[in-house]
């Protein structure tokens, strides 16, 4: 016997045969698969450069500001929660709730990018560049005193700015998409019967959060 019961976790949209999801969501999952490989290539390169380097790597906390980045990580986690709350709101037919949570997600994401820009400016000011430690800077001084390993400064700088820079670019794209979805929600573009755009942009946003969770550990804590 079959019961037609509403499943809160399965949106009521026409699905493609095979994987049984609608095509926008399927496309996003395939795209995210390619993104996994992209970030794996970056992380793999970092692993070989760091553990295959001739000298030791700078210990965590000497060059990078961990408290600021930890707070920023918390912001990104909060933005993932506000994103699922937006999804839950429109699934329940609450359009105002959707707009409010999307706005919160957009602002939290924009704040994350803003803090990252501030972090970059602060690091450059201290002398940390993609090419290593700038001559005459505070960090070059620490390297001269032996507190920081000078030999691997260039590798450290280039891998740090490449990985966090590409992630920051992804967050920026996410913020722009989120702002678009938010504006569309204000115009009543999503209903309880069709909120595909919200779910698809949400998948991208959570993926960006997931990647940061891994990058934060590898780049800042290890």
């Amino acid at each position, binding site marked *: *016997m*079959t*019961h037609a*019961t*509403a*499943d*809160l*976790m*399965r949106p009521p949209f026409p699905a493609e045969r*095979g*994987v*049984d*999801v609608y095509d926008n969501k*399927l496309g996003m*999952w*395939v795209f*995210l*698969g*390619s993104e*996994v*490989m992209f970030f*794996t*290539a970056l*992380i*793999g*390169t970092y*692993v*070989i450069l760091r*553990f*295959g380097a001739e000298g030791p790597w700078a210990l*965590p*906390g000497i060059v990078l500001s*961990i408290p600021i980045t*930890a707070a920023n*990580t*918390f912001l990104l*986690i*909060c933005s*993932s*929660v506000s*994103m*699922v*709350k937006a999804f*839950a709101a429109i699934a329940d037919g609450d359009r105002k709730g959707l707009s409010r949570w999307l706005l919160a997600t957009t602002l939290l994401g924009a704040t994350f990018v803003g803090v990252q820009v501030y972090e970059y400016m602060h690091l450059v000011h201290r002398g940390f560049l993609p090419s290593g430690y700038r001559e005459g800077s505070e960090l070059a001084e620490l390297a001269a005193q032996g507190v920081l390993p000078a030999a691997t400064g260039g590798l450290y700088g280039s891998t740090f700015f490449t990985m966090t820079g590409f992630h920051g670019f992804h967050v920026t794209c996410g913020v722009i998409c989120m702002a678009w979805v938010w504006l569309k929600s204000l115009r009543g573009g999503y209903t309880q019967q069709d909120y595909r755009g919200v779910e698809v942009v*949400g*998948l991208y946003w*959570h*993926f960006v*959060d*997931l990647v940061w*969770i*891994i990058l*934060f*550990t*590898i780049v800042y*804590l*290890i």
Partner: protein
Amino acid sequence: METVHKRPNYLLIWLYLALLTAAELGLAFELPISRNVKIVFLMFLAVWKALLVALFFMHLKFERWNLRILAIAPLPLAVILILAVITEKIW
């Protein structure tokens, strides 16, 4: 009969993520254990957090198996890529 899923408690997942992040920071900077053990524990915590996001925020826990397989398909390739890169160092 089709399985019907209830919505997860998102705030509870958020609390777990916040606590795990705090645990990571404590482990990285406060706990006096060897560096290699620290790396293993930190990676374990990071994977745990990533799984929470994938399962509950990206709703993989509630998707059908065919979509789950599609989602995890790149992971074996990612492992192969990392292992291939690591063997570069060994050789």
